[in-house]
């Protein structure tokens, strides 16, 4: 019994790893108007996505000045904030996205050190 269970989990794990290369990413970038920080963030996120998630990501940039209600609903505190809605778990990456390594960690593309 125990052996098979372990086997199963191991199989599942390997399967998951294989799949991770195909999973779709749903990302939202919340910015506050056109500030240098916002612009930098947009550029950086786009670049990283193109490099690592080409063809399987969906990125939406939202200006919370325009939609303040979303700030409350999405628990936005800092700006800019990149939210990885899918795949789970949900992650928030804040800042101007200048630290590429940390973004990759945040997107679960690199294991946490």
């Amino acid at each position, binding site marked *: 019994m125990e052996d098979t269970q372990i086997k199963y989990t191991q199989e599942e794990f390997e399967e998951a790893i294989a799949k991770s290369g195909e999973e779709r990413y749903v990302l939202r970038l919340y910015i506050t108007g056109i500030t240098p920080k916002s612009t930098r963030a947009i550029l950086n996120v786009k670049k990283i996505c193109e490099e690592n998630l080409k063809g399987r990501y969906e990125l939406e940039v939202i200006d919370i000045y325009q939609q*303040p209600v979303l700030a*409350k609903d999405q628990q936005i*505190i*800092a700006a800019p904030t990149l939210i990885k809605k899918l795949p789970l778990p949900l992650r*928030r990456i804040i*800042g101007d996205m*200048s630290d590429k390594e940390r*973004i990759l*960690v945040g997107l679960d593309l690199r294991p946490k050190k």
Partner: protein
Amino acid sequence: MTKEKSNVKSMEGLPKCQTGIRGLDEITDGGLPKGRPSLVCGSAGCGKTLLAMEFLVRGAIQYNEPGVFMSFEESPKELAQNVASLGFDLNDLTARKKMSLDHVRIERSEIEETGEYDLEGLFIRLNHSIDSIGAKRVVLDTIESLYGGLANEGILRAELRRLFRWLKEKGVTAVVTGERGEGTLTRHGLEEYVSDCVILLDNRVEGQITTRRLRVVKYRGSLHGTNEYPFLIDEKGISVLPITSIGLQHDVSNERISSGIPRLDTMLGEKGYYRGSSILISGTAGTGKSSTAASFADAACKRGERCLYFAFEEAPNQIIRNMRSIGIDLEPWIKKGLLEIYAVRPTIYGLEMHLVKMAKLIDEFKPRVVIIDPITNLIAIGSETEVKSMLARLIDFLKAKQITALFTNLSHAGGALEQTEFGISSLMDTWLLLRDIEIGGERNRGLYILKSRGMAHSNQIREFLLTDNGIDLIDVYLGPSGVLTGSARAAVEVQDKISDLMRKEEIELKKRELERQRKAIEGQIAVLRAEFEGKEEEENMLTQKEKLQEETDIEARKEMAHIRKADVSTGNEPTKKGRRNIK
């Protein structure tokens, strides 16, 4: 401390925003600085969130100032549940757009920091909430949680500074709460940014008793009370009661009220106590202090006045039962709502809390007579000076309201009777001393008036009797052997009666003796008189006889002369003189 009307401007002209929290507006001389952030700090569980929430709810309900509550710790649901017990319906207020709740949730594990950022998100949320309901008040509870969620302290500092500046520009009156740090007011130095008004809450344990206290640490540009004030959280929210010695400015009354014991009224210049005075009854155990107090309560209720009875020793039912045994029935008064017995063990709260609680009850019940039975038990929860200061403030508080207060004080047997533990006798206007008088193997109760300001009072000791019909005072026996009471008095009185009777008998006896003697003398007088009369008669007879003899003699002589034909020279009849000459 001055109580002032709504939206008061203090001397400097600083606009104030009334909190609506009982007592806090008095301490802060009108409320929090309007349009500025104030910091409320304190350690965990001392009531920061509640104070902040009450500030918003009161603002929304009483002053029509909607408010935003931004919570960094509790969810709106939790908040609503927590304050529902205080009668605040947050859901209703939110629905009516009187309040907006925003829960800021920060999960450290979810967050990855990548370079520069700001807290504009928070600003936008706050701004949106404020604008959507036209908020005038804002609470940030506890903004320091940000430090737990975000790692970059440099950014946080700068952003918080910006946030407080922004709040000022926005013109909202904000309350920011902060957790108390080691040696500092807040853990992350929030007091650096919020410098207009800082209120410190404290929850101290002394001798296993917790007391909540509030202090205005700083209030720029305004007068404020500087003391630590105890406060209470109960089913009606927070009450801070700034009971300090207000001074001796209270009005005095010339009205006199009965003590409930007619004879005692007589001793107190015929009329009883002064209204609004403080009365102390001290005595050793079992001397009838509570009974005297109950008589006073009964008398007050008979006059139709409300009486609040603080019992620190007995349960209400026990008091009622015990007093019934001496013919005082308090139950009808309780049913009528004229009497309220508030019984509590002194150790349940700290001293300050008792004072706050009492003041609160007095404010609510509005009695004209207050009884505290006994004050001695309070020493268990405070030092002598603390108790004295508390009682002084209580007395001032009562006097200012023209409430007559009666305190009982248990003096220790063997100790000096004319001494109270706390040296409070100087605070009292009337001081009665009940004491045991031990004579002839029994104890009896005696009552003195040690002092009574402003009236001519008796200096006599009276024997104090607890009868089936209440308390009676009777004169003690004052004799050559000193003051006697009880059966000794009765015995002496009987003795007196006997000797009195005997003396009367003796006098009676003597009287009878004298009467007898008098009668005997009278008899003698009668005999003598009879004798005297006899003698008189005899004398009369003799005179008569002599007269007759004389006449006969004259006749005879005339005859003789006639016979002798003697010559009569002068007149027909001889004169008496002549006759005598003849004789």
